[in-house]
């Protein structure tokens, strides 16, 4: 994962994510204010005081928070349109990811987000081997080929040409299997199936937030499963990565610790029998650290709320006017 472009180029701390957005926003504000100043300069003779006042109040550029509201609002649109096009789950996820990454380096005051919605979905289809010709895509999406292709290059460039995404769906499938192994005979399989489906939906919603920049796909998956059944996850992780050895459990469940017990016997000066290191599980996961990360992820997921249409409309209008002072 550390070799992946997703980790190398698209994982941030909350702090440097905020700085990145700030930089993008300030650059755009600079451009907007320059254009506004020029506009006023060029029209100062014809502008009334009242018009000047209106410009000052209503033509102001968007703040970083307002930008993020618009990006979150349109991310949801990408998801809805992609679902409406009946695209596979991973293609929908990639569409959302491409869209949100684009607006990390580009401001909504430079590129109207509605002009990127179809382009990100179209590129995601190509990138995920779900190829649809631009003409048939334009027809389905009620758009046109020029609009769809116009920003494709710019999108690929802003993505830093990193197109391969690791979404939390495969880890969900993986943990679904491994839980059955570690808690063998102790989980109701029908119940597991229900959890699986609910978590799959929650993963798509999680992709609409900044979670994907702050945590790895498996951590997101574990957080989402634990929101469904916290006890299941803590028991599973305890058995899987717990280091302390509880004696009163049968071998089957405690296979991992049995091996660790043997290793410890060796350390206690017991007969150093050869522990076949191929099978000795590399328990390099700090359970408490992992649990902390998971609960941080859960907190963030619980905090995220969607943007209302009214808020979006207000910000979109502001975005429009600050780019078109003459119309204002």
């Amino acid at each position, binding site marked *: 994962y550390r070799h992946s472009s997703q980790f190398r180029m698209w994982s941030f701390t909350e702090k440097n994510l905020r700085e990145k957005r700030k930089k993008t926003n300030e650059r755009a504000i600079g451009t907007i204010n320059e254009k506004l100043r020029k506009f006023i300069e060029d029209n100062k003779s014809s502008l009334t005081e009242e018009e000047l006042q209106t410009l000052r109040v209503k033509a102001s550029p968007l703040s970083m928070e307002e930008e993020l509201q618009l990006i979150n609002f349109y991310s949801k649109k990408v998801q809805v349109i992609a679902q409406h096009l009946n695209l596979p789950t991973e293609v929908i996820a990639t569409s959302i990811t491409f869209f949100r990454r684009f607006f990390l380096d580009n401001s909504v005051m430079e590129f109207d987000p509605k002009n990127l919605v179809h382009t990100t979905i179209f590129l995601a289809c190509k990138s995920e081997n779900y190829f649809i010709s631009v003409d048939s895509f334009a027809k389905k999406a009620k758009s046109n080929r020029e609009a769809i292709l116009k920003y494709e290059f710019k999108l690929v460039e802003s993505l830093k040409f990193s197109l391969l995404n690791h979404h939390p769906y*495969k*880890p969900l499938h*993986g943990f679904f*299997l491994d839980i059955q192994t570690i808690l063998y005979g102790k989980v109701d399989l029908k119940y*597991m199936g229900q959890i699986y489906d609910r978590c799959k939906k929650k993963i798509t919603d999680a992709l609409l937030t900044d979670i994907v920049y702050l945590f790895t796909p498996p951590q997101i998956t574990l957080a989402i499963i634990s929101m469904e059944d916290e006890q299941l996850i803590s028991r599973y992780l305890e058995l899987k990565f717990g280091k302390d050895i509880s004696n009163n459990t049968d071998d089957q469940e405690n296979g991992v610790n049995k091996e660790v017990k043997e290793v410890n016997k060796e350390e206690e000066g017991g007969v150093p029998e050869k522990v076949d290191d*191929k099978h000795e599980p590399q328990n390099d996961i700090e359970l408490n650290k992992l649990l902390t990360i998971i609960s941080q992820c859960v907190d963030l997921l619980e905090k995220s709320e969607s943007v209302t249409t009214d808020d979006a409309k207000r910000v979109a209008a502001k975005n429009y006017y600050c780019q078109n002072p003459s119309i204002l």
Partner: protein
Amino acid sequence: DLHQRFEVDETKYNDPLVQELEKRKDYIASGFRTDFIYERVLTEAFM
């Protein structure tokens, strides 16, 4: 990767979606193998 943090143990999996495929003629003839699927999703889970 000397120590993957998982072992594929198909005897323990109840995975109807995948297990149903391995009975299909077109899947068997194509070379489809469930362990490839399991190896993939478990690797993604323990990356």
